């Protein structure tokens, strides 16, 4: 099998020699690499199908790499295609995946094996043979990913915020949090002594792409959902060590210090359930079998005005929605129960956004140029500034603010949420705690 064929494939001696040179620098079977390379070209040329390709090498790949999930998951062309960054001699790290044990490792290891196998094949093929086909396939894949990429986030326009605290109340009501757990909060502050102007900072969890809380968690309970970037806590494994709270520079984490008295009341309004309380007429999964979310049929009637219960499990089966239990950490979930509800009118919404009377909060897919946050950012005046909170911490937050970031020495002032409110909430379980006071009150 030498020489170019009519499909423009390259199997000549030069190719063989080049392939052997390239494969000599990796620790895998040279012959297998060459065979993979040849058939990868045939695959790219349409001479054989993906299935044939996968089945032909399944056993060899398992022998060589210990795993081959290609046939079952249907690898994308990019996963086994040419990648100059990871190929031997490329600029990258030689194709190494993430370190073992890093969160979400399972998915990455699969990808790493596929990538390595792909590199092996591609290295044998050489750039000339497969580049064109790979580029075409990669382009197709990019188009596909553009549609599928999902990163929930928000654009919050501080210039519109009037600190009415509707978002704060709606959040607590939706998630049925204790009053002292403010997953959503509006900081009210003044910048310096020369102005009396009060400014506001609406602060949900920033759902950082590089969330320090996930790295600090000793049990991988705090995690970022790969499919949509929501940062969640698995309530069933959280040990309450509070490292996530220590690692977070935004102060968005709230431990359930005491037993929440109304934990069983995780409700929201307007979603009808059927009699079983599991799936409504639109096929939405609303489990009622889990402890703590048992439905009270006496209380809940099939009436669109009734309050109904959400599932505390996400669609992945992780107990991460609604209020945390005793001794467990909670924070804003981007209303994950809505995102997982399967209902078109709820997906892409949050409780805080729904109630904002000044349209300051815009929730949606930051990857989608048509989404509410992206559209809002497109619509703002050119002279309006935007920022991500404490961006220099390198956390890559997914909340984009319109307005001015509070300076380091901004002074908090008493707002609609009065000291009386604060102290009442703070002393709910701990009557002996010292009352708090705003700095301006002391002066």
């Amino acid at each position, binding site marked *: 099998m030498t020489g170019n064929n009519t499909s423009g494939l390259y199997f000549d001696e030069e190719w063989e020699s080049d392939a052997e040179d390239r494969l000599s620098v990796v620790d895998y079977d040279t012959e297998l690499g060459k065979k993979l390379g040849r058939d990868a070209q045939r695959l790219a040329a349409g001479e054989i199908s993906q299935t044939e390709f996968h089945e032909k090498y399944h056993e060899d790949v398992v022998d060589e790499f210990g795993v081959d999930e290609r046939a079952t998951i249907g690898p994308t062309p990019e996963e086994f295609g040419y990648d100059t960054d990871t190929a031997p001699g490329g600029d990258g790290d030689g194709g190494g995946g993430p370190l073992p044990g890093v969160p979400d490792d399972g998915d990455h290891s699969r990808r790493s094996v596929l990538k390595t196998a792909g590199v092996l094949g591609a290295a044998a093929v050489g750039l000339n043979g497969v580049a064109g086909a790979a580029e075409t396939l990669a382009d197709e894949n990019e188009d596909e990913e553009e549609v599928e990429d999902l990163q929930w986030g928000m654009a919050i326009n501080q210039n519109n915020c009037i600190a009415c605290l509707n978002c704060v109340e709606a959040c607590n009501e939706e998630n049925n949090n204790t009053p002292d*757990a403010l997953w959503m909060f509006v900081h009210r502050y003044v910048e310096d002594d020369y102005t009396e102007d009060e400014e506001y900072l609406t602060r949900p969890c920033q759902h950082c792409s590089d969330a320090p809380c996930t790295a600090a968690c*000793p*049990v991988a309970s705090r995690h970022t959902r790969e499919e949509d970037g929501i940062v969640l806590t698995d309530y069933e494994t959280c040990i309450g060590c509070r490292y996530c709270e220590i690692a977070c520079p935004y*102060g968005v984490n709230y431990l359930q*210090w005491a037993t929440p008295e109304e934990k069983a009341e995780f409700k929201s309004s307007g979603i009808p359930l059927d009699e079983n309380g599991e799936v409504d007429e639109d096929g939405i999964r609303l489990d009622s079998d889990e402890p703590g979310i048992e439905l009270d049929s006496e209380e809940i009637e099939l009436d669109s005005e009734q309050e109904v219960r959400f599932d505390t499990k996400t669609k992945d089966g992780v107990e991460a929605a609604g209020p945390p239990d005793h001794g467990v950490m909670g924070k804003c979930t981007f209303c994950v129960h809505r995102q997982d509800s399967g209902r078109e009118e709820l997906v892409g919404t949050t409780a805080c956004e729904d109630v904002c009377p000044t349209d300051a909060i815009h929730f949606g897919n930051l990857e989608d140029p048509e989404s509410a946050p992206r559209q809002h950012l497109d619509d703002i005046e050119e002279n309006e500034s935007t920022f991500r909170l404490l961006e220099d911490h390198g956390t890559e937050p997914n909340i984009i603010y319109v307005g001015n970031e509070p300076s380091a020495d901004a002074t*908090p002032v008493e707002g609609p949420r009065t000291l009386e409110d604060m102290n009442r909430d703070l002393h709910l379980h701990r009557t002996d705690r010292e009352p*708090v006071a705003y700095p301006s009150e002391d002066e």
Partner: protein
Amino acid sequence: MSQRTDYSLNHLRSVSTGYVALLIVLLAATLLTLEAIIQQVQDGLVATDMAQQGTQAGATWGLYIGTFEWFAGMAVGALAITGYIRFNQLEQYQMVARLSNIWAFICGLSAAWLIIIDLGTPHRVLVILTSWHETVLHSPLAWDVTFVTTLMVFTLTMLVLSLRLDFVKGNPSLPIQTRILERIVTIGATPKEVPKLEEMRRWLGLGLLVLAFTAGMIPGLLMGVVGGQPGYFGSERGIVFLAAGLLTGVALLNLTAGVLRSLFSWRDALSNEVFRGLGRALTLFGFVYLIVLFNDVLPVVTDMAPFFEGRIGEAMVTGSLAPLFWLSVLLVAVPTLLLAVFKYRLGVTVQSIYAVAILLGVWIKAQLTVVEPLLFPNLPAIEGTYSPTVVEWVITLGAMAIALLLFVLALKLIPLAHRDTEVSS
């Protein structure tokens, strides 16, 4: 100068009234601590004064973590002392080596269970172990578990190895509980292995030293890992922890040796020379601690310091936390200076009192190190407060009482030196 007395194994046999009284007091303290722990487990961490940093105007961590740092530091210090004596084969300090070996283990244990107490859901602590392989690369607490486990394994190995050597070298009459211990640690032992055991003890000593000066810095570095809090991050965090650990380790040994000599008058194993050596170490590490402390604190009170760090430094040096900070400094600085001026010849009692002052001073600073950065949020929110509750105080002081109880019990089980020791005094 009172009459010279040699070390004997009588401490293993005799049970004085004072010993029984101390045991009762410590057992009562342990029961009280248990009651406080049960209350905390039932009610949740709401039984403490810890609260969310920011809108709850609290500190997320408190006495438990501060005292963990203190115990972990002492464990590292005691580990280093054991390693140093064993590696250099300083026979006149062999009792100090044994004492520090025992203390290293007890302090490591105390640090470990304080971490568990600090968890909101302590029954889930095993989840840490099951997730360890996934999280050890990035989680500070998983590192902590690794560090404390390693420390305890090493200290226990040294204890067993050195006891085996002592038992093989001589076979005095032993009380039943020590006899059982001897049977266990000398399984398969023969006198022929004495030279090998001596070499092993020596090189394991070097291992302990390496462990103390490398892995020993980990608990300090953990603060830097969660550098989102100003005041926690910094390249010197591990050094600060190690300096405090070495000082408290030496202070604990000074205090223990001082009390034991007062009680038993062992002037061979705990000679004046040994006390001068311990005093010299206390002075040296006192100065090291103070130098590291000032290097840690001073830069953040200059105008060039980043705002958040500067605010914390200011609170400590001149602000709301200044009384506690300066008290902690004085408790270390005054004894250190007096020891230096009087050339460690102030007597065993005075040296022991100084050791107590130093232990207290470093303990106070450990609390400040943990709590202070948490009181000042990054975003414009109220400055936090933290006043530990009775439950927290009982558990924290109880942890110290339980550590002492374990040591007092160890005195009835473990010989503190080889009986036939020749000491030049």
